[in-house]
């Protein structure tokens, strides 16, 4: 069964939940307890210890990843690097992540600039945010929340795994060690 679970993780191309793996196994007439599948995943993890792979649990389930130490080598495979995300966009997604659900106006209040349709769209296209409702206010503005994919892409299981939102500080300099302006990353 371990090999079947491994095959599913390799072939799925997306994270799989334990319950999902169970129903996939059922198609083959294999009935397995959730705990047995968890056991398989653990054993896979042990099997991979001496390899370039790892089994990782993230918000949407389990997936196979290449150990981060190989990333520099892998990056030579592609000419283009992953698109950079501007500071402004990172601020926007952070505000959504910690204050969700928020309207565009809420984000603008904090950032002091208007949030462009384009930046909201780019987050929507990335599947990092979704419209989770509409605020009961004039104009019925859309409320935005983060998605599981956002956590998946950052290798996180849940929102509380994000860095803690700092308390308001009086002295900015103390708070930050670096004096340079961070570039877009």
């Amino acid at each position: 069964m371990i090999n079947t679970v491994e095959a599913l993780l390799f072939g799925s191309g997306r994270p799989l939940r334990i319950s999902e793996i169970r129903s996939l196994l059922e198609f083959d007439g294999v009935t397995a307890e959730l705990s047995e599948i968890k056991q398989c995943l653990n054993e896979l993890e042990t099997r991979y210890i001496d390899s370039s792979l790892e089994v990782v649990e993230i918000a949407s389930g389990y997936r196979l990843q290449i150990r981060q130490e190989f990333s520099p080598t892998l990056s030579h495979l592609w000419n283009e690097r992953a698109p950079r995300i501007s500071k402004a966009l990172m601020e926007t997604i952070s505000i959504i992540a910690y204050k969700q659900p928020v309207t565009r106006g809420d984000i603008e209040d904090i950032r002091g600039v208007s949030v462009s349709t384009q930046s909201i769209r780019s987050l929507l296209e990335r599947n990092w945010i979704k419209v989770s409702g509409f605020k009961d206010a004039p104009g019925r503005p859309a409320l935005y929340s983060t998605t599981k994919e956002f956590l998946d892409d950052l290798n996180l299981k849940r929102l509380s795994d994000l860095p803690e939102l700092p308390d308001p500080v009086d002295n900015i300099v103390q708070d930050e060690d670096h004096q340079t302006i961070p570039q877009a990353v």
Partner: protein
Amino acid sequence: MQNNTQTQLEFPTVMGQPYETIPDDLFIPPNALELCLETFSGPMDLLLYLIKKENINILDLDVSKITDQYIEYIDLMDALQFELAAEYLVMAATLAEIKSRMMLPQDVHEEEEDDPKSALIKRLQEYQRYKTVSEKIAILPRVDRDFFLASASLPKIEVEKKDIQITKDELVAIFHEVKNRPDLKSNHQIDFEELSTQERIQIILEILSKRNVISFSKTLRKTEGRQGVVVTFLASLELAKDGHLELIQNETEEIFLKSKGAIS
């Protein structure tokens, strides 16, 4: 790289005068000209940057000094012909308002909450929280940038496609065969026959002129279905309302229609 950029830039002009020298009191970071407006994510970011450079506590914010720096900064950016977003000017206006208020004699009765300076400080502090955390999130490992997913491409399942072998003559023959096929399909529209309540009233009256009483179910025609029941019932109610007949129901569920005699 940086020097190249500088030499390529023409000297900006301010009010017609070439802006050759930089004001002494303007703090210019080492790579100031590289710092285009896009480096800052907004006026709050720029303001925080200035405060940070001053190495001061936000609460002790010297608005007067910061305002001057901010405005000169904006002037410089403007002179370098960056598109200035309106929000930068709004912030400049806010700073100018705070500055001018400070020059006026303090009104003792003025409420704390109305103080634009403390409001600005609160906003800066709030913004600072998210700015800090966004920088932390930005350096979290990110998929396809810092780590990669492992997946195996699935084997392509080959579906064999046979080429169709057909000659020109065969094609013509098939075409004719199809064209001459008898047209066995035609549209057949079924119209629902509308049942009229008015007509039903006539029918019931006719029946009642022959016999005095009739059970409701006997007036129904099976072919008319549920619609018939409704129409008949409506017709009976109509007649009862006008006093032409009486509706009677005893212990059984059956309703009887009883003529009320003289019908004109």
